[in-house]
């Protein structure tokens, strides 16, 4: 099983995400934003948190137009798996791989704390290790995590069971408490909370570990 983690200038959760994949048994490569190809045979690409390109213009906008993101789109459009966390979620909405956009938090403050998340679907390789309706504790750290999409898009996401996680206590004004969404083929996940920061006992919380373990269970079978 191979994972690639993209690295932009200003990424700061790239190594955390790589460790999350490694501990779950993935062979991980770090891929620089100027690269024009992903390593051969990559099963899943991680788009990490941070402040790619200093959040210039809009969070994730410059990264979404970087050379490696053209490869990311090709990978996703060919049915490859992708997870984008925090700034990675912003990048995925800017590329158009996921619907909607992330606005400034409704309270205008940067929020950095652990929040309750409710698992909204078990039907994805990312969430099948949890029970639908289960509440888990995952850290958030963002200024622009207020999920926005028009009503028709939100209705479609809910109708197609593509909301992956909801906030238990909405911290940022996100529409319909949405914390993470899936692509139409359910193989691309974007979420503002950071499962990779809660993935082992040393973090003081390992509620995010089930996501990486579920990926191993699902993608291990694909590769084998």
């Amino acid at each position, binding site marked *: 099983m191979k994972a690639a983690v993209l690295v932009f200038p200003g990424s700061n959760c790239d190594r955390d995400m790589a460790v999350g994949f490694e501990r779950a048994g993935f062979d991980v490569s770090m891929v620089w934003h100027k690269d024009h190809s992903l390593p051969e045979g990559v099963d899943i690409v991680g788009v990490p948190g941070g402040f790619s390109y200093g959040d210039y*213009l*809009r969070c994730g*906008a410059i990264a979404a*137009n970087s050379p490696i993101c053209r490869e990311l789109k090709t990978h996703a459009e060919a049915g490859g798996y992708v997870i984008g966390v925090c700034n990675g979620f912003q990048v995925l*909405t*800017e590329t158009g791989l996921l*619907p*909607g*956009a992330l*606005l*400034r*938090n*409704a*309270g*205008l403050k940067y929020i950095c704390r652990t929040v309750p998340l409710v698992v909204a679907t078990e039907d994805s390789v990312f969430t099948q290790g949890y029970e639908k309706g289960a509440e888990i504790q995952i850290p958030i750290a963002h200024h622009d995590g*207020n999920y*926005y*999409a028009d009503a028709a898009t939100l209705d479609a996401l809910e109708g197609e069971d593509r909301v992956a996680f909801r906030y238990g206590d909405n911290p940022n*004004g996100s529409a319909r408490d949405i914390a993470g969404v899936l692509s139409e083929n359910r193989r691309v996940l974007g979420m503002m909370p950071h499962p990779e920061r809660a993935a082992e006992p040393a973090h003081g919380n390992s509620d995010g570990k089930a996501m990486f373990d579920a990926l191993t269970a699902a993608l291990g079978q694909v590769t084998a």
Partner: protein
Amino acid sequence: MKARVHVMLKNGVLDPQGEAVRHALGALGFDGVNGVRQGKVIDLDLADGTTEAQVAEMCEKLLANTVIESYRIELG
């Protein structure tokens, strides 16, 4: 040639920064400020002959996120 692009959040998209500015103006004693919307102005220095359609393409592909923002182009 120059072009100026105005990027604004679309009507109906909450602008928390604009709201904070509105409250601050009220706190300074400016009554009657019923709404504030904050946007961006981007000045482009372009090769002669660049068309408005090309600037619009720049807006669609990068300068604005049309999920949440609208844009207006002034060529000058």
